[in-house]
């Protein structure tokens, strides 16, 4: 995918992200993202042996709570914004998955 020029296989990455791009969009994003990755290459040059990755600005070290059952969103509310749902059976309807 990425070669020495910071170029990469845009169609493969778009597929991973579930985005159907037109050929024009593929060309535009390939150029723009190559420039951004070339700019980001300065990060690769920094020595980081033994430096731990910072996952988040640690706020609360222990966020556990009791595993108590509490009311959750009613199914009807959860379905209300769905593009296609069957309220009677509380199901989301999607296109065919298996042939």
């Amino acid at each position, binding site marked *: *995918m*990425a070669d020495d020029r910071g170029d*990469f296989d*845009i169609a493969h*990455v*778009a597929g*991973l*992200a*579930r*985005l*159907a*791009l037109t050929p024009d*969009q593929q060309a535009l*994003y390939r150029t*723009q*993202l190559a*420039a*951004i*990755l070339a*700019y*980001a290459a*300065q*990060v*690769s040059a*920094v020595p*980081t042996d033994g*430096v*731990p*990755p*910072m*996952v*988040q*600005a*640690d*706020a*609360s070290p222990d*966020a556990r*709570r009791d595993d108590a059952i509490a009311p959750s*969103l009613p199914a009807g*509310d*959860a379905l*209300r*914004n*769905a*593009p*296609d749902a069957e309220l009677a059976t509380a199901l*989301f309807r*999607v*296109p*065919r*998955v298996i042939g």
Partner: protein
Amino acid sequence: MTPPGPETITDWRDAFVRGAASARDHGERALARLDDEGARLGAVLTLTADRARARAAQLDAVRDRTTIGPLAGVPVAVKDNICTAGVCTTAGSRMLAHYIPPTDATVVTRLERAGALIVAKTNCDEFAMGSSNEHSAFGPARNPWDPSRTPGGSSGGSAAVVAARIVPAALGSDTGGSVRQPAGFCGCVGVRPTWGRVSRSGLIAFASSLDQIGPLTLTVRDAASVLQAIAGPDALDATTIPAAAPDWAAMLSGDIRGCRIGVPRHLFDAGVDDDVRTSVLAAIEAMRARGAHVVDVTLAHASLAVPVYYLIATAEASSNLARYDGVRYGFRARGGADLREMYEQTRRQGFGAEVTRRIILGTFVLSAGYRDAYYVKAQQVRTLIARDVEAALCAADVLALPTSPTVAFALGERTADPLSMYLSDVFTVGASLAGLPAISVPCGFSREGLPIGLQVIGRRGDEATMLRVADAVERDTNAWRQAPSDSRHHGGARA
């Protein structure tokens, strides 16, 4: 000419509590101006008139108005990536153009509990991704100081309605600077709290290790009042800090004697407008005159903050935005023959160009074979950046620097070159990556009469010192007192 009537939260609240105006009067005044000037600025996506009127009726029925709360009868606008039950919440995206949240964000509940009237949902860059509000699916918001320029982003609509004196306060969200930069561009105050200070329950997620909700107001005192109303632990957000919110507004004395102000002067040269540098340095000199100690500090990895931010934020965004698949909520493309085609067409048609660009970049940096080289590497350099800032905050109590290297730029100026847009975040992403509180406070004007923001960064959990220093800057410059509608008469005078 300044429009007659209340300006700050204190003005609006006092008028209501004294009985000079009803909550209904306040609500109608704000709604009418949002519908007129707010709409002309492209700042408003939805007026929440029914909700505001219902809340106003409740407040007007209270016998003793002094008991209501710090935001009694005060109209507040909310960025449209913050959920409002029963009111359309789009995040500036076609994907959520008709989305009606089933519940309120915690911050919305808390604003209303403090007596506020929620009057509007404001325009923003799509999913808060942008620095100019030009990436909204519903058109750009405009800067009240010069409508040909950006109000900044992504909380551009919130900054515009506050700067235009339509409402005294608005909420925004700040991932890499999305509250502070528009506040700076529009001449208002904008706060990014310590990461974890304010609940994100009901905030539409962009980059979860960075996102924070914060207020935009005209004064530091008002920002402190709103922050106190929305801050504090929340069972619905496990990342909130357990500590209760202190009464920050009561701590604003103007006394900063002995306070150590760290200034990273090595960042003030390349790419920083002369007027921005002059104005910020003058404000720092005024702090010295108040008895503060100004010390030089160095942020050795500062030049890496923008690339590190964009690697981490896009990776997190690609994961957070995977939920928009046309199944449970939001837009679905017609005609997909199978599930995968439906997903791909929905996401192609539902997301705008900048969001698509960031999802692709984030997917790439997380993909097999590249994750360690890009994403984990960026997280390691994030550690180095955070260590630099924390070391500087041992030698100093707060850091002072520009909010942005330039004043508000023209609409259209940077949309063709994403990288040039990203570089406008150079001074704001550092505090975001380190999880520290930071504020933008107006400190002056450029020669063409555009506002300039000074940024103050505090230690983790120490909003108090940050707010006290920013309040001192406000007392010295008084820049907030000049309204956009005055600017023609002042001919771009410096405050």
